[in-house]
């Protein structure tokens, strides 16, 4: 089963998110991540979600989403055709001995240090899932205290737009 990234244009009504999450719960689909935000038009919101599913289930998910009255459009953000990024904050252990090494790794990944304390650093990184995973992998030996991921969001490249 592969991970797929879907982008939805939805009516900006309360309850839309409940309909979508209810649909996934009811039909047993897995959501890996989900982000919601406003768009250039107040009437609509944009939802980006990643799901792990085989091709047949993915087709069902798209059709079921399209069937919801409040969902205007569903597109798949495919690798190469779209920019997909995730924002992650990582609080990692860092003392006088390790701090500079953590900062060095962060620089290599173009992550930035957004908080410095005696025993820890908070790092911010934006990137694709694989970049974020690689970064977490490198930081992990220093002792990750906690991290938070925004979930993937994305946009199609070039002249394509979700439109309505």
């Amino acid at each position, binding site marked *: 089963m592969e991970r797929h990234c879907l982008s939805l244009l939805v009516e900006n009504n309360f309850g839309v998110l409940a309909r979508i999450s209810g649909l996934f719960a009811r039909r047993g689909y897995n959501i890996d991540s989900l982000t919601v935000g406003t768009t250039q038009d107040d009437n609509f919101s944009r939802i980006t979600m990643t799901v792990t599913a085989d091709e047949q289930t993915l087709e069902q998910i798209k059709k079921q989403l399209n*069937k919801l009255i409040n969902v205007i459009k569903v597109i798949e953000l495919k690798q190469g055709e779209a920019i997909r990024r995730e924002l992650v904050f990582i609080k990692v252990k860092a003392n006088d001995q390790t701090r500079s090494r953590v900062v060095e790794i962060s620089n290599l990944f173009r992550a930035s240090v957004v908080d410095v304390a005696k025993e820890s650093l908070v790092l911010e990184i934006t990137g694709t899932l694989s970049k974020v995973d690689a970064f977490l992998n490198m930081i992990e030996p220093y002792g990750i205290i906690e991290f938070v991921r925004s979930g993937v969001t994305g946009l199609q490249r070039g002249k394509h737009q979700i439109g309505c």
Partner: protein
Amino acid sequence: MINKQILRGSEIVVRCLQEQGVEYVFSYPGGSVIPLFDAFYRMDHAITQIEPCHEQNGIHAAEGYARVSGKVGVGITTSGPGATNAVTGIANAHLDSTPLVVFTGQVTQQLLGKDSFQEVDVTSITLPITKHNFIIKDITMLAPTIREAFRIAQSGRPGPVVVDIPKDIFLAQTEYGEEKPYALGTSNPRPQRDAVTRAAEYINMAKRPVIYAGGGVLKSGASKMLVEFAEKAGIPVANSLMGLGCIPRDNPLSLGFVGMHGSQECNLAVINCDTLIAIGARFSDRVTGNINAFMRDKKIIQIDVDPTEFEKNIEANVHICADILDALPMLNKIVKPATHPEWIAKIKEWPLPERSKDEYCPKNILTHLNNTYKDAYVVTEVGQHQMWVGQYWRFKFPGQYVTSGGLGTMGFGLGAAIGVQLAKPEKDVLLVAGDGSFRMNFQELTTVKRYNLPIKIILFDNGTLGMVRQWQKLFNDRRYAQTDLNEGAVDYLKLADAFHIRHYNVENLNDLDQTLSEIKNLKEPVLVRCAISNEEGVYPMVPAGKPIDEIYYE
């Protein structure tokens, strides 16, 4: 130029129902809908309110009405328990794709979310059992939302829509101007020409084709077209339970219904066919049994207006996403005339074992009833009697069989029969019921009597929950847990008396014939109790999850 006027929300609801040509609403009063009922009371309108004894049955009545009238059924309940009582009815309509608009009263907006008296979150509760639902929080959105609710309920694959209206919206005022109902059908996808062409190629090559026609054919109004297509291409027709009536049972191509209680000829035809043309049918587990065995060695063509039906339960070789009424004529035009005599002869070699015509048993009871009431609408409850009607009735016209298919709601029938009789006042309406189902909602005999609806209730009284008992007998070594109704037996004749309903007791075929001749011309409700043995089973039967050619007989 449209005349606009300032109206209260409650009046706008009534006016919007008038716009839609609503004839009956099935409504039960309560605190939060008092202003709405007041508007019905005060306004000079053409809408008749029918009051059930319980909201569930009001919604079943709306569904019965919708199924045979082809219009949208309308229910109204109060907030809280009124709305939760309606839930079973709404779920039933959802699974059987019946167009309903259900209005639920709600507490005033200031009280929302505070666990107020008779407050429940109706839109959340009904979210998975409606096609869509709304809560109105702005009086200016009231009329457009109601119009949209009616459009959604009827368009594409029909279904129930709930509109939750807080009490203060009924009392608020805004400008109202009459509008025509929103146009339907414009959003339906057109049949895809290449898919239709490929479907026709498969059909033309088929040696052993079968049509599997479901409730969608009836909903689309394509029954006549289906028969034309079947006759031109010489293809036998198996129905799902919901599809019964789309082809007359006396048509030589009709095989009756397929699945768990399908006849041997029908099940064997479906499982042994080389090309299955599924039309407005959803491959329910009760139809397919073991899905792999069902799909084996055949090409499947699927026509449905709802794209989510494709690749849901089965993968078809060709699918046509369109209104059946648009797709079938295209397909019919390009399929070659054929007859398939060998295949049809083969199917006829797989008939049902017969029982003696003199025996007092469900089959003969129904046959005698059927001979008296050839053109009646037949409503059922859920259980053995429902399957017997499906197996033995000689259906003549679309919509004739009104039953709870997807949800299997015991207690559906009496309410539904009320709606059917209101929609078809000139027609005979039969309710074939089992005693288990009948006990659930017999309070509606009040409604039947109150509106003098001449429904003929045929009550199969075997003192048991027969269908469950049958499973216990076959699969649980006759451990009849909780299925004996004789502990706490009801005298249904005395019960009918209490409701001032004429009643008859039948214990043999002579009783039955005499009763039928007496009641045939009665324009009043009647209850006929038919005592039957609790050992009568529904056969043939395919155990759940087994291939549908693994057929059990008694």
